[in-house]
Structure formats: C-alpha cells, structure tokens
C-alpha cells in the first residue's frame, strides 16, 4: 500500500476498530491454542493410559484420568466458541470500517480536482467503490490471522518442548519455513493476476453499456453477433487473469499440507529419547499447530488485488491543493471575463442581474465557459473576476453558491422527481408547504401534468438517470431544478433544445417572468432565437 491518503483513512479506521479487532485476535489465539492443546493432551492421555494399563491395576487406579478428560472437554468448547467469536468480531470490525470508508471515498472523489474526478466513467467508478473497497475488507478480516498463528506456534513450541529442546527447535524451524514459503509464493503468484481483475471488469461493463444504447441499429444491420464476439474477446483477459489467480491460490494451499506431515515426522525423530506419552503429545501438537499457523498464508493471498485497489483508491483520494480567499459579498457584484478566457481583445463585464446570450458553433466552447464559472474546469489565473476577486482564488463553495445550472445533457440523478428538485431546494425537505413551491415550478415548466400522472407524483421514480422521462421532459425538469435554487446567476445550457415550439414558448415565458421577478442574472447558451431573446447582452464565441 503506497501513498498517504488511503493509508491515513485505513489507519484511522483500524484505530477506531481496535476493540473488536483485539477481541477477534484474542478469540483466534484461544481457538488455535485450544486446537493444539486438544490434540496434544489427547495424545499424552492415550500414551499415559497405555503405560498405566500395561503396569497393572494399581497403576490404573493411580492414573489421574479426570484432569486430562476435563481438559479435553474444556479445549473442545473453547475451540468452538473462540472460532465463532473470532469470525464475528473480525467481520463486524471490517464492515463497520467499510461503512465509513465508502462515503469517505465518495467525498474524496467530490473534492478531487474536477478534471480528474470527472474523467471516471461510471462502470470503472462502480468497480472502484464496491470491489476496491471490498479488497480493503480482507485487510480487516485477516488481522486476526497473526494472533492465531502466533498462539499456535507458541503452544506448539511449549508442548513439543516437553519432549526435548531439539524437537522444539525443529518444530519452530518448520513453522518459520512455512510462513516464509507462504509469503514468497503468494507475493510472486497472486500480485500481478489480482491487479488485472478490477480494471478489465470495469472496462467490459462500460463497453456493454455503450453497446446496449444502440439497440435498433444492431437489429437492423445484423451487428449483434459481431458485437457479442467483440465483447467476448474483450472479456478474455478477465478469464485469463481469474485462471492465473486461482492456480496461484491452489499452489499456496500445497505448502501447509506438505509441511505438516514432514514436521510431525521430524518431531518424532528428534524427540526419540523422551518418554512415549511426551513423544505422542509432541507429534500431535506439532501437527495441529502447523495447521493452525497455516492460516497466515491466506493473509498474503490477496496482497496483489489489495495493492492494486489501494493504489487506485489513493489516486482518487489525493486531496486537491486549493488556495481560497474570502467569499463574502460576491452575490451583488459584476462578473468580468478577461481576454485570456474569451480569446478576444476586449473584456466583457456583466452587471448584477444582466442576461448574457452565449452563441457560437457546436464545439466553440459555450458549455466549457459555463463549466468554468462553476469551477468544474481549470481557467487561466485571473481570467474571470467576481467583483475584483479572481474566480480561481475563490473557493469552490463560495463560487458555486453564486450559480444555478441547467446542464446541456439535462443530467438527472436516479431517484424520484423530488430527489432531483431538492438538489435545487435542499432546505425544504420536511416542510409540507414546500411541495406547493415544487408543484408551482413544475407547472411553470409545463411539467405539472406529467408529474401528476406519475404513480407517486413528486415521489414517482424517474428511472435510471431519468430514463422513464423523454429528453424534453428531462430538460424541463432540469430547468425547474435550476430555477428553484436561489442563486444570483442562472446558467442555462441549451435550455429549450429538443422542445417543440409551443412548449418552448411556455418555458421561455416562465423564465422571463422569473428573471423579471427575482432580478437574477443569467448566462444562456443556445442556438435558438426564443431563449436568446431574453438576453440584453450577447457573446459570440464563433
């Protein structure tokens, strides 16, 4: 795990989850200890009983069988409860941490420099949250493994040590060998393969989304099979990466099984001169301890996927360096566009309440200019002034509070009509009268009837990204949303594109009335004469 942002977050979560993680560790240690003791003591009891039985009735009567059999019961129960406690505590810690990491990652995405954050397409972003974050989950769940391994090795050394120092050293050497081998194998085999999985999947998902959007064309031109073949081809690296990952997984599983048998044999050989009960105890304890310590190897397994996920998350979470000045008193001052942003010699000044028509060919930069005002794009320093303050020196929270946008693509969030409108009027969540305001605005945008017909009305579901609404309906909903937001400037990007002439007239009249009533300023980018007629000033970007 490299970089600082994610590491800081994870470290904070580890600290926060210290109590459940410690509980998980202790439970894991108790489980391992009980497993080793159970088998070891059983072996010792058996051998002791054999010796006593061979010596005759007196020895049998003198043999204390109560203590070992009670111990066997205790270890069995400890092992059961310990395992349950360990699993539950470690997962509780992991999920608690993840529920905080997920929103933190989104917040990091929102705070990152817009060019970088906006370059993410949706499919990759999903992979980013759900899978990368899940990869981090293993970090928390596997925290208990070293405790278990440590307890198992300690118990193993202790029990095997009863049969002599040589046996104990032999066992310890094998345990260390197993750990090193597990680490080396996983590091080599799983890292590269794991890293491939997330990116390939994200690209495939994006591509499928693009293909599905072209339905009728596929039917008419018989392209479906070609497209499926191309998608299958694109999925091949994913299959290859998964195969490599699983083969590596299988390989890392060999080491513990190989070593356990070897270790038991080695311990018996080294403990040769010790009494039989102790040799039995040592051999069985070594067997159980090696198995319990083998869990450590799993901890290395997901290292590759984890490192890749952490790397990408870090990239998203890198904090932007924003220099901000004060943001007070900006709402009633003029906006000046300098030559550096206009590409013309003369600057352009918009007085408060002025309306600017933005015209020009497709691709001339109308949308770019609106996005620059919102701080979604980097601009030459000082090229736009709000009053006398350069826009690039005003913090985004202050700058964005000045503007309300109806975007060119009429973007919607998935959810209800209300979810979308409330973006523009976030304060009116629980006010019953606020609904009247929403309805009034919808009616002005000739959308009231459509929404009333929707099952659920304002709470009606508009589909994924507004898919249940037509393009024109989404546009009017976007306008209603923009008008609800109380900002001194409206930024309208192609506000009537895709509307028929009658609807356009209604919408433009509503906008005119609203601008006259509130005295707000506006910047309107459009090809069409009706909305441009609202404006007193004009800027042609060529």
């Amino acid at each position, binding site marked *: 795990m490299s970089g600082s942002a994610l590491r800081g977050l994870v470290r904070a979560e580890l600290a926060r989850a210290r109590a459940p993680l410690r509980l998980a560790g202790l439970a894991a240690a108790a489980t391992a200890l009980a497993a080793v003791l*159970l088998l070891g003591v059983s072996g010792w009891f058996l051998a002791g009983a054999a010796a006593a039985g061979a010596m005759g009735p007196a020895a049998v009567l003198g043999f204390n069988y109560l203590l070992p059999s009670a111990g066997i019961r205790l270890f069995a129960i400890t092992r059961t409860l310990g395992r349950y406690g360990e699993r539950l505590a470690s997962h509780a810690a992991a999920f608690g941490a993840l529920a905080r990491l997920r929103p933190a990652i989104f917040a990091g995405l929102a705070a990152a420099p817009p060019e970088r954050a906006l370059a993410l397409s949706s499919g990759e972003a999903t992979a980013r949250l759900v899978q990368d974050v899940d990869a981090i989950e293993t970090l928390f769940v596997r925290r208990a493994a070293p405790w278990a391994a440590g307890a198992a090795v300690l118990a193993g050394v202790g029990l095997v040590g009863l049969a002599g120092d040589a046996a104990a050293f032999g066992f310890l050497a094998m345990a260390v060998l197993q750990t090193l081998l597990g680490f080396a194998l996983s590091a080599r085999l799983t890292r590269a393969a794991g890293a491939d999985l997330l990116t390939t999947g994200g690209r495939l998902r994006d591509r499928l989304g693009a293909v599905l959007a072209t339905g*009728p064309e596929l039917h008419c031109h018989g392209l479906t099979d070609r497209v499926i073949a191309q998608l299958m081809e694109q999925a091949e690296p994913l299959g290859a990466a998964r195969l490599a990952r699983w083969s590596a997984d299988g390989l890392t599983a*060999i080491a513990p099984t190989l070593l356990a048998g070897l270790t038991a044999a080695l311990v018996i050989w080294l403990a040769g001169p010790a009494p039989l009960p102790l040799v039995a105890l040592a051999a069985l304890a070594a067997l159980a301890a090696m198995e319990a310590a083998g869990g450590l190897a799993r901890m290395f397994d997901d290292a590759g996927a984890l490192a890749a996920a952490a790397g990408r998350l870090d990239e998203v979470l890198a904090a932007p360096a924003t220099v901000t000045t004060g943001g007070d008193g900006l709402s009633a001052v003029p906006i000046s566009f300098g030559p550096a942003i206009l590409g013309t010699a003369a600057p352009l000044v918009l007085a408060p309440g002025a309306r600017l028509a933005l015209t020009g060919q497709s691709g001339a930069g109308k949308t770019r200019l609106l996005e620059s005002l919102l701080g979604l794009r980097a601009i030459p320093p000082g090229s736009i002034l709000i009053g006398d303050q350069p826009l690039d020196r005003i913090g985004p929270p202050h700058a964005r509070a000045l503007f*309300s946008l109806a975007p060119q693509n009429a*973007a919607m969030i998935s959810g209800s009509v209300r979810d979308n409108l409330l973006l523009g009027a976030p304060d009116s969540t629980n006010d019953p009268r606020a609904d009247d305001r929403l309805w009034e605005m919808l009616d002005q945008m000739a959308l009231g009837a459509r929404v009333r017909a929707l099952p659920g009305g304002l709470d009606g579901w508009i589909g994924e990204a507004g898919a249940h609404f037509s393009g024109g309906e989404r546009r009017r909903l976007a306008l209603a949303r923009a008008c609800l937001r109380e900002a001194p400037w409206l930024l309208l990007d192609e506000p009537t594109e895709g509307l*028929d002439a009658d609807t356009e007239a209604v919408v433009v009249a509503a906008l005119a009335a609203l601008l006259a009533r509130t005295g707000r300023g506006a910047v309107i980018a459009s090809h069409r004469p009706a909305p441009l007629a609202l404006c007193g000033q004009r800027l042609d970007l060529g």
Partner: protein
Amino acid sequence: MLRGVALWAATTAAATRARQVKRHWRQRVLAALLHARADAAPLAGIAGAAAVDEIEALDPYLIRYAPARANAAIGPLLVLAAAASASLVAAGLLAATLLPFVALMILAGGAAAEQSRRQFAALARLSGLFADRVRALPLLLAFQAEAATTARIGTAAREMSARTLSVLRIAFISTAGLEFFAALSVALVAVYAGFALLGLLPFALPEHVDFATGFFVLALAPEFYAPMRRLAAAYHDKQLGEAAAERLEAVLATPPAPTPRVRPPGRAPGLRFAAAVAGAGPDLRIGPLDLAIPSGGIAALMGPTGAGKTTLLRLLVGAAPLCAGEVELDGQKLSEAGSFAPLIGWAGQAPILLPGSIGQNIALAAPDTPRARIAEVAGLAGLDALLAARPGGLDALLDERGSGLSGGERRRIGLARALLKPAPILLLDEPTANLDATAEAEMIALIGRAAAGRTVLIATHSEALAAIAGQVVRL
C-alpha cells in the same frame, strides 16, 4: 503430502473448467441482453452487473465449492474405513457424531440462503447508487450537494454492512458447529481409547485396543472432519454462487425479439400505418397512428418531446411492441413479420463503433464491400472532410469508443452505414439534433440526396428538416 498436490491439481483443473463454463454463461447472457425485446430489456446497470460481476461470482462455487463437495462426500468415508480397520468402536463413534452435525448444517444453511439473497439486493442497490452519483458528479458539484450525497451513500453502506453481518452471523453458526464436532470427534476417540487402555470401560470390548491402534485412530480423528471443514469454508461460496446463478437465469429468461419473417419487396415499398399503437413502456401507449407513405416517399414524425416519435420508429424494427392496429409494407403485415429490420437502414444518434478502421466501421454489416463503394457512401454521408483530415482516410483506426470523433461525425458514420445497406427503407432518429444552423443545413441536403430510391421516415424536431418531407405527421 499427496493431498497437497492433489488439492492443487484439483484447483487448477477446476479453474480451467470454470473458465469454459463462464465463457459459455457470458456468451448466453450477452446474447440474451442484446437480443432482448426492448420492453423487457434489463436496465444498463443490471446488464453490466450480470455480464461481468455475477458471472465472475460463479468462480468460487465452481472452483472451491464443487471439488470440496465431492471431497466431502468421499473423504470422511475413506477415513472411516481406515479407522474401522483398526478399531470398529472408534469408527462407530466418529460416525455417530455425523448425525447431529448434518442436522445442524441443514438448519444453518437454509437460513443463510434466504439472508444471502437479501444481501445481494443490498449490494446491487449500493453499487447502483454509487455509480449513479459518480456519473452525476458534475451536477452534484454544481448544486453543492456533495455533502448530502456523501451522507446518503453512508446510509446505504451502513445498511449493506448490517445486512451482510446478519448473513454471516448465521453462516458462522455452522463454522462454530463444525469446529465443535471436529473437537468432539477427537475428544471421543481419545477418551474411548484411553479408557480402553486403562481397562476402565464399564462394558466388555468387542476388540482389543493397544497403544498403536489408539494412536492411529486418534491421528485419523481430525482428518474425519477436515474435508467437511474445507467444504464449510466454501459454503459461503456456494450461497453466493447460487444467488448469482439465479439472477443470471432471470436475465437469460428475458424474452427475445422475434425473428423477422419478411420478403424483400424488390423496390422502395409503400408503408401504411393503420391505427397502429406502439408500446413504450409497461403502461405507456403511443398512437393510434394513421399514415400512408407512398413508395419512395419521405415522411417526418414531429411532435412534442415524449410524444413517441422514436418509439414509432422502433416499432418497425421490432424494438417496441405493436399493441393494436397494423403496419403494412406493400401488403406484408408487421403483426405477422414481427419486424421489418432486414429491409431497414437505421441511423440513430449514437451509432455503434467497433475497434477497426473507419472504412471497416462503415461496412460492419457487409465486410466484403468494395472499397470504392465504401468511399462513395462515405461521401454521400458527408464524411469527406473528416477523411481528408485524418491520416489514412478510410483506413484511419478507431477504438471502440470512437475517441476523437465528434457527435456529428459519429452520426455521419452511422448514416453511411445505413446507406451502404441495400435496404429499401431508411429510418432516421433525430439526425439534426444538437447541430448548429450551418451543420443542420448541410445534413438536410445530405439526407435529401441519400433518400433517392428509398422510402424514408424521419423523427425530428426540426421544421427545416421536415420541409423536405412529402408528409408530416404531428403527434
């Protein structure tokens, strides 16, 4: 040691097979998605999850669970047989622990299956919500809604954590139960063998137990439950795999678009809509539409946004259902043909692009087309300026995203593709939307030339474009 090697071989073999199985699933799922009848097609988010995540989610089932299940069926029997050869009573004790163990597994497993389905729903919601909000990030930033959205994602993530944890709380009961029975089997064998060696058992033994026998069965005892512990470790894999397979089956059950049964008419056909009603969603109907386009005529569908212009175009290619009325193509009925797609050239707003050259993309549907013919339709579609500006012209390579092409250029490639198809009908969906006045005028002139010899139906908002149509229907 042998077990280790066998385990690795089994995993690799299972993984290789799993890749084949997944390939097969993916092929079928993609076909189901792309051939789906439009009104039954899953949303893009679900489609993406199905074709990528849910298919890969089969891996643990195929690779870890399936071999573990086979091993769990055979492994304990082998151990039991080995134990029985040394001590029948010890083997009996091992077998006796099996009964309550199986009962517990069935109880815990059944409960976990139900919970697991719920967890999948929560996961899908979380993933969908996050993807949607990231897509809408510019909007959320503009409306300064990032804090509120972060809080909402937090709520969803907490809900998901709670659900996952409740699944695991039950799944872990079986883990603990297995641990208990594994410990119990060791304890029972140890106590039996120990007391037999001491001669303290209150009943007569059917067999003789010495130390070697006792040690042997004791060493075997942990192995009795080992295959089942491996199976249990994979039990969660089974739940996830089965839930994924269930959702994939639902996608595979998507009704496919009908196979068109239509005869080529030999010339530009007449098209007649007779009170035709198209379905645009679960309860949205478009029409009835009455319209007769003569052979070689141009008609424009206009109307307020949402009136269903595109839906009526989709009706002809079987991408929207015919709910009432009829459409006839020189007497052939749409209700019988299912779709006129084989006779139609379609140019939409965002044409599909595949990795390859511009020329190959134009000729996607007919790869054997002579180069001269491709150049001709490219010229007809107004691509000359683009081809001149790009090194290689028709041979200039595109990636599958069409990086570097503007929206207008993509649309022209789509138009060229539609023109290349010797189809007597041309359907154009908003060919001039989002073009400025100059570009729109150019496109209208192109369409006028391209329409020669074809029957054309255009969905548009543009009065200028509608002016070239012989008939204009206002919905």
